[in-house]
């Protein structure tokens, strides 16, 4: 077996794709076994020039749509994505803009599917992200996406929030995007333990959130309760659209204080 190793970044993958041959495995650092007995291993380092060339080839042959598809598929972080993308890359070289129609190629089917999953996650979080105003004037949104959607969300909120200073924080991957004056930067940011346990306002230390924050959260929760029609109540339908995993970050689904004594007790022990 032949193995290509790389550091797991998109730029490195773009460097690597033209070198990949069918049958080779691609393994990102930390994403697979440390060693294979009897395997032939090779490491590929990111090369910005080659990466840019690959990107431009993909764009020229496949168009912006297929390049975006590949990017979305990559950031799904699903297992086996690299080999699928290798096959997809070759399909783009061969079939151009029509590559994604070739459902007889398993790598193409998988790429389309992975891109779809990321896309769905991006769209959901565009709606579900909740910014909280911090004491220092930054609007802060913690979240835990299934896929690595931060780069795509950043583009959306940069357009939307204008001059406002904001930070979107992927707690699962400990990466944050910070936007100041319309410019975005990324950084590794570790969240404090209390925040990982509960993003709720009442579990935060004094002064962490701005004073007006509580008022807006209460207004929002009140609106959320009032807008539902009692005689049409349908919690199953609600859950279908708003699966449990998202609810942790949705202020409107936070349990009311004292509604679950067992949980409050548990929090007390842990804190």
């Amino acid at each position, binding site marked *: 077996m032949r193995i290509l190793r790389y550091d797991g970044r998109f730029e490195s993958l773009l460097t690597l794709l033209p070198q990949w041959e069918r049958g080779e495995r691609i393994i990102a650092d930390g994403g697979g076994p440390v060693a294979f007995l009897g395997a032939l291993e090779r490491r590929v380092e990111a090369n910005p020039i080659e990466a840019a060339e690959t990107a431009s080839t993909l764009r020229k042959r496949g168009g912006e749509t297929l390049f975006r598809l590949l990017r979305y598929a990559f950031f799904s972080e699903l297992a086996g994505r690299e080999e699928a993308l290798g096959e997809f890359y070759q399909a783009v070289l061969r079939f151009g803009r*029509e590559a994604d129609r070739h*459902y007889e190629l398993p790598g193409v089917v998988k790429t389309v599917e992975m891109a779809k999953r990321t896309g769905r996650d991006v769209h959901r979080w565009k709606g579900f992200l909740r910014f909280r105003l911090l004491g220092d004037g930054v609007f802060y949104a913690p979240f835990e996406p299934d896929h690595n959607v931060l780069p795509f969300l950043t583009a959306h909120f940069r357009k*939307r*929030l*204008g001059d406002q200073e904001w930070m979107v924080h992927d707690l699962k991957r400990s990466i944050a995007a910070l936007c100041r004056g319309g410019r975005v930067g990324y950084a590794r940011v570790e969240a404090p333990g209390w925040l990982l346990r509960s993003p709720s306002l009442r579990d935060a230390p004094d002064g962490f959130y701005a004073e007006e924050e509580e008022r807006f959260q209460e207004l929002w929760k009140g609106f959320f309760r*009032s807008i539902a029609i009692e005689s049409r109540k*349908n919690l199953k339908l609600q859950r279908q*659209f708003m699966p449990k995993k998202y609810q942790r970050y949705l202020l409107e689904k936070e349990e009311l204080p004292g509604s679950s004594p067992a949980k409050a007790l548990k929090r007390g022990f842990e804190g």
Partner: protein
Amino acid sequence: MELERKLAILADAAKYDASCSSSGSKRASQAKGAVGNAHVSGICHSWADDGRCISLLKILFSNACVYDCAYCLNRRSNDVPRATFTVDEVVDLTMGFYKRNYIEGLFLSSAVMGTPDATMEKLLEVVSKLRLQRGYHGYIHMKSIPGASLELVRRTGLLVDRMSVNIELPSEGSLKVLAPEKEKKSILTPMAYIGKGIREVALERKKSLRTPLFVPAGQSTQLIVGASPESDLQILRLAEGLYGGYNLKRVYYSAYVAVNRDHRLPVPLKPPLRREHRLYQADWLLRYYGFKACELLDEGRPDFDPLLDPKAHWALRNMHFFPVEVNTADRESLLRVPGLGVQSVKRILRIRRTLSLDFETLRKIGVVLKRARYFLTCNGRMYEPFSFREGVIREALVEPEERQTPTGRLFFPRLRSGDLPLPLSTPKGGG
């Protein structure tokens, strides 16, 4: 009164309006201090306990109404808590919610305070302040108050993304009985005016992009289903006419919720949700699938089958049209296959240029065959040998748990024309 309390009252009062869409508009600004844009595809931010999506801050400016419409919670003769926002309160709420990504925008309506013009002026003041003073570029849907002057309608249209005038009831007769202070004319005149404005501005913008936007996300309307005796066919014909003649983007159907006890109204135990659902399905067939109202229903069968979706309902009465061959049929024919949606058809058309499609490939490209398999062939082959007869397929299409209640309307008694108690005197409090 506290803002919390006001918001509770005025959100509660606005909740029967079904419109939630935030799509169809593209608005952006890079100007200093500006906030917000409108996203073409629309974004849902939450779902309420009734399973309806929340994308807009949906509120009334006031619920202190001078009208007395029979079906309405806020009618003058009801004893409900009343509240009225100030302009700044609505502006601050909208900005605060929007910046926190709770909402996609504002949906502003109001009870009629004093006169239609006075009411409309207040609403216009809110949107002017948002757009011109606070640099807000998010989505705004504003109700046009029936009876307000066309000049106010025009000024509003230049600032908002979507406008709507609710038609409320599916016929003039029902309007007279249940909403005696609203006239058909006061609803259709602004609707026609907005429709004309949208058409003209669209033409102008083709010549020059400097032409200011006018209701770029289009206009919509809403009607209440189940409060009056009209059949599904009548309602669908009305919708068809509105889409064709008034350039409407959406017609919303709202299952009647019995909020008032009134001798002019039926007393359903539950809102007719199934019927509302069927109408929405049919509405989609009108807008995206090339169906006509008269194909879906006729005078002999003026209502949908609660057990079957409208497309299956049509298919079973037109068995001669099937089976459809996936590899050669045109778009129009594919769209008529139960179980195939616009997206699936698009994918089929794209992929079959490269591959010959069989059922396995269809599944791989994400086409759901649960219902479609009865109506399709792939290169002349059917999905499985079965008897291609209406009865057999019908049996297969209806969900097993549905068969338990053969009427499907067990809980939704619906009154027909003869059943509606006719008011003998002037309706209570009516003008």
